[in-house]
């Protein structure tokens, strides 16, 4: 089964039949974003192959930020920490196995990246310095940072067998191995 398909760097031309109304919407969207239709279509195919089709298959739920923030407001930090640790210890492994992928460090890193790039949990940057670290930027406040910190601690410890150190910088998190 295919997943995490990387760009080859060579392109070919693909044609398809499209409803005129849909095409009009596509052209309007490209104009609104200030990009070409071709760019939107190629990005869309990448997003679909690497994420949307899986979200659909695994019946993953989409929430608007306001709904998440209301949940966070009503939950205390201990509860969020426990939920984060439990789900971080299990769901990434399930996600990989359901995609037919081996549970190894490289693929787990793809899941961590997906949580940022597609699931919109955070923005992430990888720093390959003398002491490598991940930097997680979070825009949902302190309680969400608690959830994320526990989620990633559970993920590293129980899936990869790695103890991590988390350092809170405001609501952002620096993770060192």
């Amino acid at each position, binding site marked *: 089964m295919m997943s995490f398909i990387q760009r080859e760097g060579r392109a070919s031309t693909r044609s398809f039949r499209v409803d005129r109304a849909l095409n009009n919407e596509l052209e309007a969207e490209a104009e609104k974003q200030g990009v070409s239709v071709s760019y939107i279509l*190629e990005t869309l195919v990448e997003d679909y192959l690497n994420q949307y*089709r899986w979200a659909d298959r695994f019946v993953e739920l989409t929430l608007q*930020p306001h709904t998440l923030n209301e949940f966070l407001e009503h939950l205390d930090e201990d509860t969020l920490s426990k939920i984060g640790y439990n789900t971080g210890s299990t769901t990434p492994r399930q996600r990989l196995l359901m995609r037919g992928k081996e549970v190894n460090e490289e693929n787990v890193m793809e899941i961590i990246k997906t949580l940022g790039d597609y699931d919109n949990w955070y923005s992430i940057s990888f720093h390959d310095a003398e002491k490598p670290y991940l930097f997680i930027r979070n825009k949902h406040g302190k309680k969400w940072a608690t959830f994320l910190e526990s989620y990633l601690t559970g993920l590293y410890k129980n899936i990869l067998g790695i103890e991590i150190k988390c350092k809170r910088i405001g609501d952002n998190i620096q993770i060192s191995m």
Partner: protein
Amino acid sequence: MTRSFRLDTAWDKALVKLAEEKGTSVSSLLEIILRDYILFYRWAEELDSLIFSPSTIKMLIDSLSEEELLELSRKTAKITFEESYLRRGDSLTLDTVKFQITEQMGKYAHWFKVDEFNENTHYFYIHQELGKKWGIFVQAYITALLENIGEVDVKSEIIGENIIININKGR
């Protein structure tokens, strides 16, 4: 009409393989992908929506009391729906709410599965698998969405973990 675009060969090969697995043509698959994007994913991206596994949502929901769920579902229904339809350039009508329930929440956001019936009586039959508390949250959320229109009477009941929402137009 026909549309052409440049596509990285890795993704083109993957698309061909996927279309074969689904027993469809690449052209049909691309049209479906585009439709899903136009109807849902572009708005999800614009609204900074977040994606969760069902088990994570269930754990979050099950940690809240029923009273808390009722309070936050009513509150979020109004705000998130307004944000969605205003962003799309729609107006507040029964059709817009129906689109939100059946397409946005049902088909794409995976909150539940829903069927709409409109013969002698008009109702939505909502099937969900995240437990009693999610049922309570969804029931209150959809009731608040429909009541927001101001021109319908809404009656709902939970049967097992599923929900029936009856609507009566012309209040």
